[in-house]
């Protein structure tokens, strides 16, 4: 969400957390539900499943808005992880093993991502630029990792390149992207 005059997605989530603001939720839904649906379609879900996961994800956003930590993650990242987990719930009928909320309380000193002088939203924009600037072959394996529901050994087959090459491209891509995310 980049329109400068409207509230950011992160602010909308905080409005939902504080006042159960339905107008804010409607705006967030309008932006993210179609993107979650697109994400599911890219991963091979049918339209009904994609709608279903988009609905379930957004319902979780509504209910868990208070647990969103704007200093730690941007809205798109938080929503991505919910959509990822809901997809596995709905399509594989399995609960995806994630970091436990309970454990989280015992790790208050986990470093925030990168330096705090640039906001998480700004960093997201830099990251998108960095992905766009990756060499085409590296960008392709990164996208396939997120948008193909299959192991890297099969990505190898899809691209017709050896597994070692897939892995080294991923490693190169992550090295470049980490620079943007404030490491190295």
């Amino acid at each position, binding site marked *: 969400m980049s329109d400068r005059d409207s509230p950011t997605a992160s602010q909308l989530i905080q409005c939902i957390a504080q006042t159960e603001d339905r107008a804010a939720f*409607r705006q967030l839904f309008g932006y993210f539900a179609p993107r979650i*649906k697109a994400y599911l379609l890219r991963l091979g879900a049918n339209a009904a499943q994609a709608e279903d996961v988009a609905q379930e994800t957004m*319902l979780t956003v509504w209910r868990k808005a208070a647990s969103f930590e704007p200093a*730690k*993650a941007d809205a798109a990242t938080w929503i991505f992880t919910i959509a*990822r987990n809901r997809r596995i719930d709905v399509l594989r009928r399995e609960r995806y093993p994630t970091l436990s909320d309970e454990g989280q309380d015992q790790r208050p000193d*986990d470093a925030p991502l990168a330096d705090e002088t640039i906001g998480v939203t700004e960093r997201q924009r830099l*990251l998108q630029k960095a992905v766009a600037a990756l060499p085409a072959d590296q960008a392709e394996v990164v996208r396939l990792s997120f948008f193909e529901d299959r192991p*890297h050994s099969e990505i190898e087959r899809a691209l017709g390149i050896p597994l070692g090459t897939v892995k080294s491209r991923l490693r190169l891509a992550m090295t470049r992207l980490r620079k943007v995310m404030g490491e190295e």
Partner: protein
Amino acid sequence: MAMPKHHPNDETLLAYSSGNLAQGFALTVSTHLGFCADCRHRTAEMEQLGGALLDELSPAPMDDAAWNAIAARLDEAPTVSTAPTVPQEAAAWPRELTPYLPGPTLPWRALVPGVRHVTLPVGIPKRGNVRLVRIAPDKAVGVHGHTGREMTVVLEGGFSDVLGHYGPGDFMELDEGVEHEPVTPPSSHCICLIAVESPLRFRGFLARLLQPILGL
């Protein structure tokens, strides 16, 4: 707690972050994350990449009725799931693992003298299995090879093999074709979480005899 020394590599962590790992493998990774601040940080970065990619997807329009359908559900009371009782012996293990244990007590069964195991109700492809394995002190598990991927995370104690020493939180991934022979130290037992994609292959006469019993 000392930080782990052996970590998942970038490919494995990216597969985990993108939701691309089978449940059993994802559980070994999330259990490692319970031990490892560095890898929690790496995972957060990869999820941020997922967020950036989600954000720039071309939207697929929702059904006309979608907003009304969800608006009608906003007042529904969410189903509250209660946290499962954690077995006493698992009290110090990461909370990432405990919801996947089979119940409030762990039904350990003997595999061979000095080795006990519990199978976890967790998904894994190709007739593989996910289990806790408890190995007595000063025990060699036997040379074995792998017909599929294996991911292991140490929960208590440790073991050594040709690749080095593995202690609490350490993560080990073995690919097809790798052979190794883990050995526990004389002074302490070892408990590991092990996810294997397909049965292990043991070498040697005794190992072949044991294989059907081990079901490894």
